[in-house]
């Protein structure tokens, strides 16, 4: 099994530690993983802003880089969802179909393809999970409160096995954080208010470290936490699963 690692553009440039943790984690799990160096971005920033046609080059570049892998794994539910859901704008060659079918968010890949739960990690903190929307309602990485059916959450299943983690229940576990790509800038007032409310919910629930499958949500929340100097640490799930504190 050959696995291609996709590191989203903003993680590559701004949060390389998330990429490192993801790679180390996959290597620890004895995955034959490679990072194709010609990769850039999945195309989502343009597409969600209404410029899908400007993202065609990014889509093609993505497929070129990843067409030879059995699986494509990425520490982002949102990017994986974008490839799966919105790569219908380029001709559906066998390569494109293969890429769309085989792209996985990290937790999903570990739990459902590798079928591993206990990663031997330890992280002695009170952790609050923010269930990023595209992973939750797009990829169905967990049940959401609107839908009637069995309750599950991949990210929490993995966290439960981490030594020392105390999972803190929050009041609105699957409400959006307000990032939303360019929404964060075009609808600044609402975006900030949503983020503030999300942080408040976690702080009031006794959370020390907030985590998620997506660094985009976390970048927005971290920006607020840092500006307001709030006592909340923000880490991507890969960093916790790769931790041995």
């Amino acid at each position, binding site marked *: 099994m050959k696995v291609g690692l996709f590191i989203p553009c903003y993680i590559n440039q701004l949060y*390389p530690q998330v990429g490192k943790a993801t790679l180390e984690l996959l290597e620890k799990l004895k995955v034959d993983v490679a990072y194709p160096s010609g990769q850039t971005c999945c195309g989502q920033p343009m597409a969600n802003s209404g*410029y899908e046609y400007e993202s065609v080059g990014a889509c093609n570049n993505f497929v070129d880089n990843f067409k030879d892998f059995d699986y494509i794994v990425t520490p982002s539910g949102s990017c994986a969802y974008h490839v799966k859901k919105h790569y219908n704008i380029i001709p559906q060659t066998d390569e494109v179909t293969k890429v769309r079918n085989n792209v996985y968010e990290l937790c999903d890949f570990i739990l459902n393809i590798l079928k591993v739960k206990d990663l031997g990690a330890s992280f002695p903190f009170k952790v609050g999970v923010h269930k990023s929307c595209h992973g939750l309602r797009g990829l169905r990485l967990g049940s959401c409160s609107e839908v009637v059916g069995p309750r599950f959450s991949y990210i929490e299943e993995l966290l439960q096995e981490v030594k020392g983690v105390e999972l803190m229940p929050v009041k609105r576990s699957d*409400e959006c954080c307000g990032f*939303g790509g360019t929404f964060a800038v075009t609808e600044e007032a609402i975006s900030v208010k*949503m983020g503030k409310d999300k942080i408040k919910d976690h702080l009031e629930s006794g959370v020390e470290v907030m985590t998620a499958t997506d660094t985009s949500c976390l970048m927005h929340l971290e920006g607020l936490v840092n500006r307001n100097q709030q006592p909340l640490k923000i880490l991507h799930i890969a960093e916790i699963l790769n931790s041995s504190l």
Partner: protein
Amino acid sequence: MSHPKLASIFNKDEKKVDWHDKALWFVRHKRDKSVHHVQGWEELRNLGHGIKAHMLSNLDIYLREFEANANKNGVEVHWAANAEEHNQIVHKILKDNNAKKVVKSKSMLTEECHLNPHLEADGIEVIDTDLGERIVQLAKEPPSHIVLPAIHKNKHEVDELFQEHLGTKPCDGDPQYLTGEARKHLRQKFIEADAAITGVNFAIAETGGFVVCTNEGNADMGAHLAPVHIACMGVEKIIPKQEHLGVFLRLLARSATGQPVTTYSSHFKKPSDGRKMHIVIVDNGRSEQLSRPDFRASLHCIRCGACMNTCPIYRRSGGHSYDATIPGPIGSILSPGKDLTKHSSLPFASTLCGSCSDVCPVKIDIHAQLYKWRQIITKETPQPFIKKKSMQVMGSIFAKPKQFEKVGKIARWSLRTLPKAVINSKPNAWGKARDLPTGPKESFDDWYKKREENKGKNN
């Protein structure tokens, strides 16, 4: 004004935003508590979706069947191509019956057509009888929510409004007292009314009858007391058979408020002796929406308001920020079909979180349609030069790995080196309330390449 502008005005009063958000989250929570106890809820949603999709694919046939049956029942059926014609038809019926005083129960369609001002211009008194609608009518505002029209007003505002218009005593916003006074005031209006106007929740092709749902009983008080009953409906309110009500009445109230069913689900078919019943069937852009494969499912909507209650943006921006008859997520996919330029900011008033689609009782893919409207809006309406250009530049950077590497380097350097005051200065909306990340010296890409090189050396 655009949604972001109106939303930021609403957000100037953070306490009010918190209050509005909590009130609607509470309704969403009641909906959850109710639907999680219904065996087969998701199958029920599938049925709601399937029946509506079938209906739309046979709509002309079912409309004809409905009309024929309604005529047989002694009901007069009228057709209006647009809002203006709807208003003229209603006006004419009222004039023919010498009706000067009209009571109206909630109908989003008559709001959409701006019926009240049309009738009032001819000296006809139109009283909205749903309590929430009466409150906004007295305040001279449009409803801010389709099920809870006055959800943006707190009880003290209602208290003051009633003191001014109904002569009530100051009561510190006591909802019991205020509702009691509204009951007395509106009881008089019901007794005096010459005609009653209601909306239609469902019109049944098979019987020619229609169903109106209320909790207050205002539709029935109006319709059974006044000698003339006019029911106004959009073409998409048709359902094929009476038994389909079993599906939709199970979905509607639970999704709207968490109640297992509305207090009154009234099935009107024939007028009682000596009385008149009219139905006005309105298109007003619906047949055009039907022509758009990506957007026609928006016509499945049964107007429960659940997408508003669940929407994190709606809850924090208020219904009026949408500047449209139907606010919230469903309004944001309906309104662009009517006036793309006027409503061009609405499909962007969303993070595409998808909660609206998951809560929708008839499974409209609302967030997917928001995404699709965005693609159309950027092509068909004027866009800010800077947005268009930056998307183009970004598109070309991401298409070419070498360029991406260069730009990334510069960006990281800037974030690391430039003073915070510059980074967070005015043109950067991100930095108004949020810090940007510190740019690391090394990208993941750099680190990985180095690591691979070192591996090579070590081997």
